[in-house]
């Protein structure tokens, strides 16, 4: 075994890696159901279930369902459904649909901008979201093209601090080139991604826009483009180092004295959407060690082959800035943490604990972070 240990990544590790397994050949009816009890500041105590289903009934369709309800009088209700890989008319073409109905006591946001203070801005957490996303995936999912249409209806904050009810569409297109050895849990190879915001329709089968307002950090005249480049270096059969790079740029409204927001940088030690400005950079290193188990699990909460438990250690840095000068790379924000993942065939259940100068963050979700 020691003779097979690869101590250093080599250029060959960054070439197109042969697929370890074929995504379309995943077993049917694999699922995970995770009960959750949580207490959130300003929200209260609630209980719920997060679940994921893979290749339901052999149709190739995946689904995720989240339900949460309040206890002890606090008014909380969350229901979310995502259905993915719905096959359409031609091979490689599929559809994803997501719908969520959320009602919390409070939602919070932060001001955009490099100098955004660590001071939350609350607003009424009542909104519905729908997403429709057709995708074309070719050549063993090495080429992925996606159009994403989202419709939001509910409370939000305008860029002068007024809470309003708003209904609006958002649209984006993305291209992902995947030269890794696995769609779900890559361990060698690399990926290149590009996403751009697109002009969204005023109305669609998802709904109709309300009167336009400038929502906090979301200017409709702005085009946001994101670039990603991720490498996976195998140090051994069980140890992989993932290196993820992200760059975001928002163009339009040049010369404005308002903060123009691109995408938020994905620092896991901060709340989501914490850091965003016209330009954003991020790089993250994550070491993943997989303990193979290959145990069939079949009980109430899980059905499938538990391929392994993966332990992760990560460190991330990033920054945002109104321009792309040297300041974009100064005084970088950083976060670091640990994670544990359950690899259940095509489902990765991930629990990450990350921390930054603003305190700890917990993430319980499905799929690898990158």
């Amino acid at each position, binding site marked *: 075994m020691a003779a097979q240990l690869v101590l250093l990544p080599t250029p060959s590790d960054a070439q197109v890696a042969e697929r370890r397994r074929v995504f379309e050949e995943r077993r049917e009816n694999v699922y995970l159901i995770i009960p*959750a*009890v949580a207490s959130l500041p300003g929200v209260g105590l609630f209980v719920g279930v997060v679940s994921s289903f893979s290749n339901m009934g052999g149709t190739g369709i995946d689904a995720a369902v989240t339900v949460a309800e309040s206890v002890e009088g606090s008014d909380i209700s969350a229901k979310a459904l995502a259905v993915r890989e719905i096959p359409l008319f031609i091979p490689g073409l599929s559809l994803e649909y997501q719908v969520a109905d959320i009602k919390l006591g409070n939602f919070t946001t932060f001001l955009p901008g490099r100098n*955004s203070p660590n*001071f939350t801005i*609350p607003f009424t957490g009542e909104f519905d979201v729908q997403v429709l996303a057709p995708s074309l995936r070719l050549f063993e999912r090495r080429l992925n093209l996606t159009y994403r249409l989202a419709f939001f209806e509910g409370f939000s904050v305008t860029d002068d*601090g007024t809470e309003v009810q708003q209904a609006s569409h958002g649209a984006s297109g993305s291209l992902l080139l995947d030269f890794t050895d696995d769609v779900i849990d890559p361990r060698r190879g690399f990926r290149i991604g590009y996403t751009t915001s697109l002009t969204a329709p005023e109305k669609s089968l998802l709904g109709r826009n309300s009167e336009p307002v400038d929502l906090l950090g979301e200017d409709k005249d702005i085009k946001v483009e994101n670039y990603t480049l991720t490498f996976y270096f195998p140090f051994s059969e069980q140890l992989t180092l993932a290196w993820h790079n992200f760059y975001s740029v928002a163009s339009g409204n040049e010369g404005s004295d308002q903060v123009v927001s691109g995408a938020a940088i994905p620092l896991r030690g901060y709340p989501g959407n914490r850091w965003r400005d016209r330009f954003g950079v991020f790089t993250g290193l994550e070491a993943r060690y997989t303990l193979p188990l290959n145990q069939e699990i079949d009980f109430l909460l899980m059905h499938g082959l*538990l391929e392994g438990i993966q332990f992760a250690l990560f460190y991330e840095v990033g920054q945002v800035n109104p321009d792309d000068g040297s300041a974009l790379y100064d005084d970088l924000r950083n976060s670091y943490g640990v994670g544990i993942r359950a690899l259940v065939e095509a489902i990765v259940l991930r*629990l990450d604990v990350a921390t930054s100068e603003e305190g700890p963050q917990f993430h319980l979700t499905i799929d690898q972070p990158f």
Partner: protein
Amino acid sequence: MGVRRAVWVILLAGALLTGCGKEEDSELPETFGPGSGGPQANSAAGVTFEFTNAAGTPIGAMTYDGSFFADVTATLPTTNGLFLVLSTPPALTGAGLTLRFLRFTGRADTACRFRAAVLARDQGYTILQSGDRLNSRGLEFHQVDLARGGAGLSLFCVSLRERVGLMVRGEAPSPATLGNLQVHAVLNSIGTF
């Protein structure tokens, strides 16, 4: 540990750890109280002012000491939603104080916290403390205290009627002045119709 038990441990740990958070404690007293410092409000010199919504319908009122505060609104450029600006002459004890009264729509905490965050991000203010407080008429305000270079700035936001509210922006040479008897008398006098 068997695999099934290990899975239960992981799921339970994940479920319990998710969303663990501490309620944000307010650093401010629950009620305004009478305040402290500076001259007592002179009720004989009280001036009543009415607040209206954008359509001009009265939605609330307050009273201020006309012998302490001067109405300087007319000396300032017209600003949409600005009701009133009160100021005190520097020579007066506990003075150098300005109170601006502005209309906002939406939630009181959203309005005050957003404005405070903008002041911190763009104008170098430091946010000191924040929280909800009741005045003597039972109205709940959201208050945020800020400071810059020794000077104090406090924002007091209250919803009056149908998502229309009042923001009181107080500025003074020191944060302590914003807790004096005159300021608290004004805040405690604010009521709705």
